[in-house]
């Protein structure tokens, strides 16, 4: 800082020379923290390419792999988006995966009932989806009220809410998967926006009509519907966080809650909104799960909560609040999905996934701490 004498007058605020050296180191640091996750993802892809070529002579890099990974990514990412917003306000949501399961159970139960009563497909599907998504608002708002108004620590209130909502989902479903879904439900959930049949051309939202069962392996699936929905939702949440006043307030609250209150930011209302919004995203995840698996299950998101939090942390968010981006979470989710998909492709015992994901999370936290230490 220069407090100049009055006569000197104001001068330029941008100094490209970084005369103190500190901003230079800081910007390099920011660069490393931004880039490492992408570099790690690239390394993973290269590693799996070499391994899968050697082990079972399969090309890892293919349209099929990309679509497979993106499909794996979608559930982690949907929950991860909400977790990103919550972690930015120095909170955490341990109930997200259970809310996902709850939503899938409620949505599937509604569809099962309406289908059995002979309602038309449009009514069945839209009522099922809407009810699955909207019902998630209830646990979300309760989380928000407990945290913002009653000042229960987020860890405790969402842990309690997770167990509670798991119980409610079990009560509704009797502990069984909610099956007997309309046959068209799975077709929607497993459809793709675009198909390409070599020598025959493209088709939208369904395999080409002329294609016989035998032709199906030759038809390329481009952009599964689930992936498209996830992309759209991701774009919306990115916009909200990066561009709107609500997003700005999330960063301000995470950076200095007391300061945010004094600056007149409606902190309580914002906190309630963010937990409700995250729950709605869990609801979307639950409904998508139901369409993919033609079912509803209380444990549909059992492992998703921690994977999603892992994705957020890998993406550079700080659990102390104030930092985190949607792009970071996207990379984090891609890394986790790539590990899962790659290990399956290699035929590794699936339990290794947990070991691998755990290692990556720990590495991510070390990189973050190391970066912070350098920044001081």
């Amino acid at each position, binding site marked *: *800082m*220069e407090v100049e004498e009055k006569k000197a007058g104001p001068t330029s605020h941008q100094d490209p020379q970084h005369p103190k050296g500190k901003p230079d180191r800081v910007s390099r640091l920011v660069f490393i923290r931004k880039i490492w996750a992408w570099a790690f993802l690239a390394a993973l892809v290269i590693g799996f390419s070499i391994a899968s070529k050697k082990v079972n002579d399969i090309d890892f890099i293919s349209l099929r792999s990309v679509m497979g990974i993106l499909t794996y990514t979608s559930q982690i990412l949907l929950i991860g988006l909400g977790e990103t917003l919550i972690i930015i306000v120095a909170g955490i949501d341990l109930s997200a995966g259970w809310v996902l399961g709850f939503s899938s159970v409620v949505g599937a139960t509604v569809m099962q009932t309406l289908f059995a009563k002979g309602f038309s497909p449009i009514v069945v599907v839209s009522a099922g989806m809407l009810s699955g998504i909207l019902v998630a608002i209830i646990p979300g708002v309760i989380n928000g009220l407990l945290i913002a108004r009653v000042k229960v620590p987020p860890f405790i209130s969402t842990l309690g809410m997770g167990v509670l909502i798991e119980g409610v989902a079990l009560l509704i479903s009797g502990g069984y998967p909610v099956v007997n879904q309309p046959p068209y439900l799975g077709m929607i959930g497993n459809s793709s926006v675009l198909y390409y049949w070599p020598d025959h051309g493209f088709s939208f939202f369904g395999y080409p009509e002329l294609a016989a069962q035998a032709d199906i392996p030759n038809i390329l699936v481009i952009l599964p519907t689930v992936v498209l929905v996830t992309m759209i939702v991701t774009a919306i949440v990115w916009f909200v966080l990066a561009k709107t006043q609500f997003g700005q307030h999330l*960063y301000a609250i995470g950076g200095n809650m007391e*300061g*945010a209150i004094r600056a007149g930011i409606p902190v309580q209302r914002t906190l309630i909104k963010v937990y409700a919004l995250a729950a709605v995203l869990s609801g979307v995840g639950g409904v998508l799960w139901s369409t993919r698996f033609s079912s509803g299950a209380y444990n549909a998101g059992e492992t998703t909560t921690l994977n999603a939090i892992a994705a957020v942390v890998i993406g550079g968010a700080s659990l102390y609040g104030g930092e985190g981006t949607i792009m970071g979470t996207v990379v984090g989710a891609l890394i986790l999905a790539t590990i899962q998909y790659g290990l399956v492709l290699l035929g590794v015992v699936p339990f290794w996934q947990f070991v691998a994901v755990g290692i990556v999370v720990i590495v991510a936290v070390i990189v973050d701490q190391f970066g912070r230490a350098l920044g001081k």
Partner: protein
Amino acid sequence: MENLLKVNNLTKKFGGLTAVNDVSLDVNIGEVVGLLGDNGAGKSTLIKMVSGVYKPDEGEIFFNGQRVDFATPRQARDIGIETIYQDLALAENLDVGSNIFLGREILRSYLGGLIHTVDRNKMREEAVKALDRLNIRLDSLTQQVLNLSGGQRQAVAIARSIYWNAKLMIMDEPTAALGVSEQRKVLRLVKTLRDQGVPVILISHNMQDVFAVATRIIVLRRGKKVGERMVNQTTPDEIVSLMVGADEALESSIDLNSTDPD
């Protein structure tokens, strides 16, 4: 000339304890008033009444000739009384522009007001203006406040108050956490504020600071105003003796049993 701030016979009690007892003071444009006193002398309580945190039990506050009666700190701020506490209330993860507009972001609307986005470029431009007014130069406005020095952060907090039309600035121990050269810069900022017609009430333990910038010193002891001196007509020794109450030194051993609030 009319006083910018005029405080008449303010009293504040907490239970049986009189934190501030019948204190009057005034602050005029072109002044820096040092508010001095030992721990528990009532400085903070007095200031919190002026900035709307506490409601006085007795007495009245006039600002710009108008009787004011604040229900919230926000009301005090809205009419131009800004208080900068030691923690500065900055969001260190955000850049300078975002901090100056914290909670009052500049928005751009699209689609006929359907969608609003935060206009960071505009906020940065305005931040430059606010900083220019105080002759503050920062290397980069895009970096997080986290990366600024303590004095620079003070400057951002002050610039924020100025931007939102502070007419009177209350600063609580602004130099307490700073290195020597940073302290000097902040004191120079205090003078800049004074020169631009924003008087400052400076709360400090640091006698040197107060003598460096203040025009007038008010000393509190155990809730009472025990002295008011022009800086050029007093000495640090005299102020210290007012603060600790040299004339009442004998009594103090008895009074140790009573606890004063800070």
